């Protein structure tokens, strides 16, 4: 189907960037935050306005610039991109609200810079979601790395400095060392970088060994996807303020990483071509290894945000695993999990931030009894945990269920066991927190009475995302439909 010309994509991409000058120039913090909301709302509306035509099966396209006849910077909206953009733009609104509460409570410095770069990050994220070819995707991917650097190192202290260094070293280093050459070699062989529904690698006579090398370079080049051994930037990046960790490390950055991996598998290599090569199994095993290893490491972490970070690494590999299995169900699961995990994980991060903002506590061992002081927060935490573990009544179950179906469909029982083991491990590192938070004797409780719920600006977003997680269990339609549609265009039928 021919793509339709539309200025929708470019408008959507530019909305966050348009807000930046206003953010910088406004002196009053209320005005500044008002603008953030306005931009977030506008972005969401813009994305939603394109939803109907996408659901009808159309593809929207906008060419920004043409580099060579076969290479352009162009934006295309398809079902997969739509799904991701929908998640990201919705969660930006929520995170903006949360940021206001969090940043004001902790009286953080340089808030203008914070909001500006937040908007820039969203710009890059939406750009990745709507990228029409690999080249454009790479541009926005790189932009995202840089736009998030000041956010990660927001505190500007020694720890932030070393973490920032690690962050850049992994993210920028891998993309320069692996991604650019891989992209160029691909381009040199194929003469195009436009995503196809069955990729564009097939039929150009690329030697199989080189193909394997390229696949590896692509996967490791997108170090944001957190696959081992290129994962250790993610826990390091947890030094950032919590809203940043929440949005960027549960939603934008890491999801951009896995989104790019899905694009590589489906849009660059193509499922048929990849399965004929059998290289997908290497990837699946790597993902499985990451899932188990990350879950085990998560168990040993006492810092809540670090535990969440390792949990994220594991969950990201679910998505990669799903994509690597190349079956109808697994691909659906993989795409769906982007959304489901986003809602679940952001709730968890919000909760961690709320606990820190209210009590200054970062470590799990000191959270005994906190549920009595902050019942709403911890209730939301429970919902988030359920979603990530994959238990009803939270949305995470849906995607996991599809993933399980996918492993059965591909006759790879090994991965089924991996999934089950991982779910158990997930439960093992989340549920005790909740349990200890609510059920403990008075003398065990580590909290004075003065610790209370966080302000409404913080709590509201937590409730919204937690509720959304619950709703998605009962009504996963928008995302499920988009994911199905995306898989349909890939696998046909």
């Amino acid at each position, binding site marked *: 189907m021919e793509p339709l010309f539309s200025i929708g994509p470019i408008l959507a991409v530019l909305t966050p960037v348009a807000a930046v000058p206003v953010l910088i120039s406004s002196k009053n913090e209320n005005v500044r935050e008002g603008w953030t909301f306005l931009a977030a709302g506008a972005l969401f509306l813009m994305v939603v306005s394109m939803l109907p035509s996408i659901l009808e099966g159309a593809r929207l396209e906008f060419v920004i610039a043409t580099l060579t006849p076969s290479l352009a910077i162009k934006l295309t909206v398809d079902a997969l991109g739509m799904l991701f953009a929908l998640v990201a733009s919705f969660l930006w609104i929520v995170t903006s609200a949360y940021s206001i509460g969090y940043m004001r409570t902790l009286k953080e410095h340089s808030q203008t810079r914070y909001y500006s770069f937040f908007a820039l990050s969203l710009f890059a994220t939406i750009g990745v979601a709507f990228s029409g070819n690999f080249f454009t995707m790479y541009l926005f991917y790189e932009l995202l790395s840089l736009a998030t650097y000041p956010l990660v190192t927001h505190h500007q202290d020694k720890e932030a400095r070393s973490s920032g*260094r690690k962050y850049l070293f992994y993210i920028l280093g891998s993309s320069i060392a692996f991604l650019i*050459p891989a992209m160029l070699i691909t381009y040199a062989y194929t003469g195009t970088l436009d995503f196809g529904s069955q990729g564009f690698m097939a039929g150009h006579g690329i030697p199989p060994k080189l193909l394997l090398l390229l696949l590896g370079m692509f996967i490791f080049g997108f170090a944001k996807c957190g696959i081992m051994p290129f994962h250790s930037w993610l826990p390091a990046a947890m030094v950032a303020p919590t809203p940043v960790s929440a949005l960027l490390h549960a939603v934008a950055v890491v999801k951009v990483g896995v989104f790019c991996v899905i694009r590589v598998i489906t849009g660059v290599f193509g499922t048929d071509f990849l399965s004929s090569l059998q290289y997908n199994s290497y990837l699946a095993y790597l993902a499985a290894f990451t899932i188990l290893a990350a879950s085990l490491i998560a168990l040993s972490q006492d810092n809540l945000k670090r535990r969440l970070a390792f949990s994220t690494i594991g969950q990201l590999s679910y998505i990669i695993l799903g994509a690597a299995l190349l079956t109808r169900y697994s691909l659906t699961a993989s795409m769906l999990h982007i959304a489901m995990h986003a809602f679940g994980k952001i709730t968890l991060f919000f909760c961690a931030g709320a606990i820190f903002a209210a009590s200054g506590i970062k470590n799990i061992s000191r959270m005994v009894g906190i549920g009595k002081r902050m019942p709403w927060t911890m209730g939301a935490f429970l919902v988030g945990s359920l979603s990530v573990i994959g238990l009803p009544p939270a949305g995470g179950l849906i995607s996991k269920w599809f993933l399980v179906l996918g492993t059965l469909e591909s006759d790879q029982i090994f991965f089924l066991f991996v999934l089950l083991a991982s779910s158990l491990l997930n439960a093992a590192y989340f549920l005790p927190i909740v349990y200890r938070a609510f059920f403990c004797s008075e003398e065990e409780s580590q909290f004075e009475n003065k610790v209370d719920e966080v302000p409404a600006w913080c709590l509201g977003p937590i409730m919204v995302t937690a509720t959304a997680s619950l709703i998605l269990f009962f009504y996963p339609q928008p995302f499920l439909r988009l994911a199905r549609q995306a898989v349909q265009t890939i696998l046909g039928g």
Partner: protein
Amino acid sequence: MSQHYPALIIVVPLLAALAAAAAGWINKRYCFPIAVASLAASFVSSVFLLGRVIRVKEVIYEMAGWTAPIGIVYRVDALNGLVIVVVTAVALVNLIYSKSAIEEDFPDKMGTYYALYILFATGLAGMVVTGDAFNLYVLMEIASLTGYSLMGLRRDRATVSALNYLIVGTIGATFYLLGVGYIYIATGTLNMAEIASFMSQMSDSGSIRMAFVICLAGLFIKMAFFPLHGWLPNAYTYTPTASIGLIAPLTTKVTVYIMIRMALSVFTPEFSFKTIELSGAIVWLAIIGIVAGSCMALAQKNFKKMFTYIIVAEVGYMVGGFWLGNRAGISGSVLHIANDALMTLALFMAAGIFARKIKGEEISDMQGLFRKMPWTMAAFVLGGLSIIGVPPTCGFFSKWYLISGGIEAGNYYFVGALLFSSLINAVLFFRIFEVAYFEPFSESHGHDHSHGHEAVAVEEAPLGMLIPFYVVAISLVILGIFSGDLITKIIYFAIPAGIV
């Protein structure tokens, strides 16, 4: 007037240089407007000229009305049409930027400074548009002589390094002259196009081969290509603020342009890439140069000196990319001439602001600058990202073409060197950013440098410097976004059709 654009680009600044020098003896206030007006006129003419070249492919201007082999002609095609715009734009923007620096550094020799500045720009512009091999030498000497004096007047070391540069530069220029002599002895003409037309029968002539080697050696010396780069870092590090923004971006780039012009339009691609089997060796030198330049940059504590080693590496990019001998590599090389001129300008503009405000040139002097001068730093970051090659800045796109040229030619060492250099550049710039971002501003700045009188308040640069700086920084992004148009509409036609 439109048929006179090629002459206007050169003659208007020349006359203005006379006027500015005279004004320096009569009334100093007129110097700056004269200089700006003339370079602006030159810039506008070159833009119009480029527009015309895009339409008609080639503009020829016969000086004194004598046709090609007899007289001197100016020949503008897509290649130098692009470069001339860059040259005049950089000269103009840097002049506006450095007004206050000039007034501060050379209060009693302002007129002469402006005259030398304009003459330097004139010389470079002439080198770009001329179609005569000997005329190029004369213009090269104008640019060199004015360049030496623009460099030579600052601190103690500036004079020594300028003198060293003069000696090396003269060797380079004289070698070029000798090469032209060898060409003349074999062909009997000095017109580039006519030499090229003789080249098919001449390709086995020994003196042509020798001419090629000698010209190339001379140009390599002048552009500081790897083993011959020794003079550049010292010469550029100690150059006054106002001059460095003109000299550093343009000298090496214009010399690279001349190399490309000689190889493509004088010696013909057939001869340069096939008959003479030197391109492989040159690419290897470029690879070593890129790696060595990057490593040397890493070893520097002084940020200006670090930038100079980056220039050495960038010369390696352009030369290496060109001698890959395929369309992608040459496109990347030509695109990089334009991009690198602006990137280097941005870097040295930033260095100029820092040098004025913090009175130090060590990276460690830059503590806390993000807090004190956020606008300057923001633009500087843009420049740094462009050097690293981060999209969507222009540095990425030229690197893209260079790397794809390397892949096409199957020269993976070159690709590796480019990527290595990008990584090193990332380290270099983030090292600076870290110091400026994380370390708190210390009040002890400048005390040991400013000779007793109290430290200058570190604050945002004045608008007169900031606005030109932003023009350059933003153009880095704009150039990046439109590099596709640049390639398809201009550079594509700059490369002979025989090269694929």
